[in-house]
Structures are given as C-alpha cells and as structure tokens.
C-alpha cells in the first residue's frame, strides 16, 4: 500500500476512535441528534464529492435523490409493510435508475448541462412531494415510518442510530477512497482535466461520468432511507432545492475533491443553522456572508487549503 493509503486508513481509524469516545463525553440526546444529522450529510457529501471533485460536474439535485430514498423507504415500509433493509436497497436501485435517465442525455454534452437538469429535477420532485398528497402526505409530510432494526434490535434511539450511521459513514468513506485510488479514479481525474486525452488513453469518458453520477446519487439515496427510519416522519421542505445548495456548499467549503474536506464541510455547516438560531434575524446574512467570503478568498476549500500548505508538490493528501 502506498504511504498516502496508510495515511488515509490511519485517519479513518483515528476518526473511528474519536467517534467511539464521543458518546461517552456527550450523552445529551440533543447533541447526539446533531451528530447523527452530520453523519447523514457526510454520507451525501462523500458521494457528491466524487462527482464534483473528480468528474468536475455539479448536481443541484442531490436533495431530491436524498428525498427519493427517504420517501420510497418511508412509504413502502410505512404503508405497505416492506422489510426496511430490502427497501433501502430497492430505493437505491430506483434512484440509480433515475440518475441514469438524467445523466445519460445531459452528461454527453459539453458544458454544465447537468447542473441545469438536476436543478429542474429537484424542483419537479418537490412539487410532486407536495401535490401527490394521497401517497406522500402532502406538505405536512409522511409519518409512521418504522425504525430500522439490526440483529433483532430496533435502532430507535439517538444512541443506537449514532453507531449505525457513523459505522456506515466509515464504510462509505472507505469505498469512496478505494474508488479514487483505483484505475477508475485515475480515469475520472483524467477526464476532468482533458476529456480528449482521457478518451485517447482508453477512458470511456461518457460511461464514467454517468456512473460516478449514479454512485453519488446512490450515496444520497441510502442516507435518505436512513433519515426516514431515524425520524419516522419526512416533509417535502427537507428535500428542496435549498437543501441541494447546502449540500454542494458543504463540498466546496470543505474542499472539492478531498474526502476529508467533505467530512469537515458537513460537520461545519450542519449545526450552523442551529448555532445561528440565537441570531435568527441575521441568520441568512451571516451564512451567506461567510459563504461568500470563503468562496472568494478560499475557493479550494478549507481542507484543500490546508493540504496545499502542507504539501504543495505531490498532489492530494488522502
């Protein structure tokens, strides 16, 4: 294994230890809830980062994939009594299919057509969630979703969900890291820099772009399914276009193309609305202002900037 590989797994191990110790220090369920939401966001952002940081395409529809995962899982287990884990996989498969349908026609074009298509897609999904109220419960949401269970134990508390969600985050980070450091990951980086030369080197550029988009959508769908079972109630507002913007923001603030950056961005931005709630009146001004300043002066993201300082020649640190 390469030294950067060792460093990544050492980082992952350190994170695991930190996560294992955290509940000992923090037993307040309110904070555990925040950590759990962070975990779900990290999961979405990890997938999104593969798309943005490696294939160089933005999606403003990931909240819709997140929401589709949540609604498919919620409705099929709640109204039709499906088995939750199998439903999670079924939802991911449906989302993968939807992402393929959106990705195939738009990703073969030159230019940022994906961002336009995903934006439109998210708006349509939001309207459907509200208007199909017979199925979705309309604007007030869908409730009565059963919790997940593992080995016969229901994952019904903040504590038990904490272990599940963060365990899956670690797995998700590991899988993403493997992808990045494989021939496929190299091909993705190459097509981002020069599609012409990547194709001439044997990289199937159109297929790779669609596949990485699908993988990132599946990350979002899985997180959405977990979300539905965790809260037991889901509302359309959770999955609107502003959530999509927030998710991409997490990627950019942390550092595009840096998996640790995504983790950092999600951990930084998720609790921000709650923290800013004390200054409710100025919430958007402060959030927008911070975002603006960071984007203008630190476009490579916080972690990207730190990595750049530490090791200029030699590329990425994970």
């Amino acid at each position, binding site marked *: 294994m390469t030294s950067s590989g060792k460093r990544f797994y050492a980082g992952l191990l350190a994170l695991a230890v930190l996560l294992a110790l955290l509940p000992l220090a923090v037993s307040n369920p309110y904070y555990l809830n925040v950590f759990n939401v962070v975990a779900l966001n990290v999961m979405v952002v990890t997938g999104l980062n593969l798309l943005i940081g490696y294939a160089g395409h933005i999606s403003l529809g990931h909240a819709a994939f997140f929401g589709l995962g949540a609604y498919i899982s919620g409705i099929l287990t709640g109204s039709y009594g499906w088995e939750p884990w199998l439903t999670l996989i079924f939802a991911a498969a449906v989302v993968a299919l939807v992402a393929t349908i959106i990705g195939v026609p738009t990703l073969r074009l030159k230019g940022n057509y994906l961002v336009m298509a995903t934006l439109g897609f998210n708006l349509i999904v939001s309207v459907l969630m509200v208007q199909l109220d017979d199925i979705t419960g309309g604007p007030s949401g869908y409730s009565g979703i059963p919790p997940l269970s593992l080995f016969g134990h229901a994952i019904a508390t903040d504590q038990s969900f904490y272990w599940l969600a963060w365990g899956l985050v670690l797995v998700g980070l590991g899988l993403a890291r493997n992808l990045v450091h494989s021939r496929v990951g190299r091909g993705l*980086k*190459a097509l981002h820099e020069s599609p*012409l*030369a*990547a194709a001439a080197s*044997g990289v199937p550029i159109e297929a790779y772009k669609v596949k*990485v988009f699908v993988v990132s959508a599946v990350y979002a769908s899985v997180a959405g399914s977990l979300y539905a079972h965790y809260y037991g109630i889901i509302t359309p507002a959770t999955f609107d276009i502003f959530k999509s913007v927030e998710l991409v923001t997490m990627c950019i603030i942390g550092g595009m193309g840096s998996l640790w950056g995504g983790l950092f961005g999600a951990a930084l931005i998720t609790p921000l609305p709650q923290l800013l709630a004390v200054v409710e009146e100025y919430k958007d001004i402060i959030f927008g202002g911070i975002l603006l300043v960071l984007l203008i002066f630190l476009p490579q993201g916080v972690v990207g900037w730190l990595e750049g300082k530490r090791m200029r020649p030699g*590329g990425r640190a994970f």
Partner: protein
Amino acid sequence: MAALLRIEGLSIRFGGLQALEDFSLAAPAGSITALIGPNGAGKTTAINCVSGVIAPDSGAVDFDGEAVLGLPGHKLARLGLTRTFQNLQVFGLMNVRENVMVGLHADSHGGFSAAMLRLPFLRRQEAAIRERADEMLALFGLEELAGQPAGELAYGDQKRLELARALAARPKMMLLDEPVAGLNPAETEQLGELIVKIKDQGIGVVLVEHDMALVMRISDQVAVLSGGKLIAQGPPDRIQQNPEVIRTYLGGGEEFGLLA
C-alpha cells in the same frame, strides 16, 4: 506490406471549407508514415477523423481488419490505436507517473464496483500498471520526475510524457501530431530516435510533422496533403524530387530549405 491502418475516401467540410477531399492512405505496422503539408492542409483533421474526435462526412477507416470509423476514442485505444496531441494534453494536476498510468487504462480491467471493493485482482493489476509506468518513464528519461505534477514540467518533458502515455498500453499503432514542434534541435534528435525505437518494436507510426529534416530522415513513406487533397505519396527521396510538392511548398511560403 499489409496495411494496419487503411483510410479510404475521407471527406469533410467545415462550412465553406473543404478540409479533406477524398483522402486515402494506408499505413503498415512497424513502419513510419509521415503526413506533411502546409498549414491548413488537413493533416490534423485527418488524425482527428481517424481517432474519433470528429466525424467525417464520408469515407471509411479500417484498423487491424475492423471498420472503426465512428468508434469513440476509448474503444480505439482498446483496439490498439493511440495518439498524441498537437497542443499538449497532459493531465497537469496529476503527477508524471499517474499520467502514464492513465495511459494504461486501455490495457487494464475492472469497473466501479470492483474498484470500490478493492478486489484482490485489482491490487495485483495496480502493481503491474505501476511497474509498466516506471518502465516507460525510464525509457523516456522521466524517472527523476515521476512524482512531479505534470503541469510543472518543462515543455520538452511534457512532450515526451505524452509520448510515454500513448505508448504505455502497448498499442499497435500511434498517431503522433507534431511531436517535436517547439523542441530544440537536441531534443528533436532525441525524440526522433525514440520514434524509431517505437517503430522497431513493430508498432506502426503515423507522423504529422513540419520538421522536414526529421521527416525525411526517419520516415519510410511520406504522404503530402495540400488543400485537403493527397497530392503525392512515396518514399522520402522521391517526395523531395516531386515537382508538385516543391511547388506547393514554395507557393505556401514554407521553409523549403529544410528539405535538403
């Protein structure tokens, strides 16, 4: 000699400009076929048509006994047809070794799921890819620079890196678009020797080049394009005597002195 690459009747118009008109060429394996002509004669257009970057209006391209016109670039690479670019296309943010490793995409396997699960066969393959990449770097004298971001290399090193990347996957034929443009005489000399070495491995080379001295020294056959049409074809010494070629070059105001 059986042709590895056979181009038949290629034509393409860009608006009012007939960039290629009924262009045919046969290039064998283990041999250097040079494609020369004044600026705007259609040389790069021909390469772009063959390599799937643009689609011609009509014509056919056979490679290794298969009709390949319309195939995307990565399929051609898999069949053993790779290319370099006139304006450099190295992956600037990736390091030099990684650049060559990308070149081995055509010669390796394993998709998204296998990669995410890091299946054992991929680990073995990755080691082989690395080994082959280092072999290429040694051949092109780039081993010292292996860990450097490719974008920070000197121009001449980037030119060689592109060649190393195109050769890495053991292609049957390489299309080289002005590989020595912008290089100094010493670098040109060195790269010329490398191209001959590639040919000696049995690989077919199609060489688009303006450096007449190099073309005449290393090519086995020369094809001359002018205004999108093939005006002459033959061994270098005969091409140098061809009156139409001489006229084209004098008329085009190019440095004909280099032919000597």
